[in-house]
């Protein structure tokens, strides 16, 4: 339970997709002129991330990782398909976005019309692919955690675009130097917001250090056990061989 809570807050504040990794910046900058459209896109991103990250976790776990194909049979044990992960992930994402588009169009035409152009845009939003790639590179352990990671990083992105849209609505009334108006000031405000979000960095460091050494010792013990078992096996095999020779 604790690790779920930790991951949740970490992906929203500390590892915020926009402010710490600059993922999904293009749509973040292009669609943040009005709060209402920003909310629509943000909600769609949360939804798509919550579906695709766990789905790609399953793909990664049972198809792509080194030795992931063992469930097919022992002869597939040393296959490593991880070089295919880009193409598999992007295929999943494109399919899911298409599916979401069809479902939304069927059941809620009003929402479909208000989202309209943003839905296909999500397929090429780096935040979505980035979520899956970070899920893979950070080796998230369970399906539940992957789902949690998808949702919470989506919420982080939603928070960022909501905040910048609100600021941009207000900044229209202030005297920004002409060449800086529009894109330039948005970049600089995002930079300032990122500085603010950096202060969340110290929030969760205490827990990590305490938990890490325990896992390592158990692993070493297991390896030792394995070695002892192997030795015993070899001895018995040797003794059997000796007996048969005699």
């Amino acid at each position, binding site marked *: 339970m604790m690790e779920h809570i930790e991951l949740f807050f970490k992906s929203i504040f500390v590892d915020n997709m926009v*402010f*710490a*990794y*600059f*993922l*999904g*910046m*293009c749509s973040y*900058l*292009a669609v943040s002129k009005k709060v209402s459209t920003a909310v629509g896109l943000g909600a769609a991103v949360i939804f798509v991330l919550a579906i695709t990250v766990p789905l790609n976790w399953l793909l990664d776990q049972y198809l792509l990782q080194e030795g992931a194909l063992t469930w097919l049979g022992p002869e597939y044990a040393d296959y490593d398909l991880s*070089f*295919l*992960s*880009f*193409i598999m992930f*992007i*295929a999943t994402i*494109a*399919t899911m976005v*298409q599916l979401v588009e069809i479902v939304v169009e069927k059941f809620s035409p009003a929402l479909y019309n208000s989202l309209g152009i943003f839905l*296909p845009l999500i*397929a*090429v*939003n*780096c*935040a*979505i*692919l*980035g979520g899956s*790639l*970070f899920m893979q*590179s950070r080796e998230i352990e369970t399906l539940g955690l992957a789902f949690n990671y998808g949702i919470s990083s989506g919420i982080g992105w939603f928070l960022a675009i909501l905040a910048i849209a609100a600021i941009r609505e207000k900044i229209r009334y202030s005297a920004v*130097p*002409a*060449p*800086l*108006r*529009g*894109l*330039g*000031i*948005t*970049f*600089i405000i*995002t*930079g*300032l917001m*990122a*500085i603010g979000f*950096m202060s969340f960095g110290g929030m969760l460091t205490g827990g990590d250090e305490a938990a890490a050494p325990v896992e390592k010792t158990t692993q070493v013990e297991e390896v030792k056990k394995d070695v002892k078992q192997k030795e015993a096996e070899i001895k018995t095999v040797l003794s059997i061989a000796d007996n048969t020779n005699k």
Partner: protein
Amino acid sequence: MGLLSKKDSKLISDPLLDNNPITIQVLGICSALAITAQLKPSIVMAVSVLFVMGVGNVVISLMRNIIPSKIRIIAQLIVVATLVIIVDQVLKAFAYTLSKELSVFIGLIITNCIIMGRFEAFALANGPWRSFLDGIGNALGYGLILVVVGFFRELLGSGTLFGLKVMGDPVEKTGLFALGYENNGFMVLPPMALIVVGIIIWIQRSRNKALIED
């Protein structure tokens, strides 16, 4: 340029300044910002995008008459993903530490909006040679910003360029450091990438008033 006609050379020169993909079209920013803390990864990233865009634009342009428009997005994504896998594998084979440093951002070339944008806007409507030039031009415009941002962030942030000590040694206080210069550690952190790009936009738009938004 003697080799290219006037119209063709415009395809390359336009995206460098007046129609720069990052500062004017607002495309491909995601990967551009994250890896610019040092000059070397910035250049590797620029070259990778150059390769993917040049080849990808030609491939899409060759296939433009046989791709049904309904599934063109997934067709484009597959082409990009294949090219990016090639780049990723080459980097892993020949520059492993660098590919670890770039981590997921090589993979994120797939969702780089410049590439999709150029496929949609140009390669689907033009012949292979012109598409190739357009791809190269846009990738160069993207690379230019990357290199400029990477240059300033590495120089001011750690006093080095390509890992070589340009400003002197910060520990032994040689070179500029002897005069009391200090590294601005803030430049290495993520937020400054945004602010540096913001300043580039500012400079660019004060030089060319036509680009100012209202």
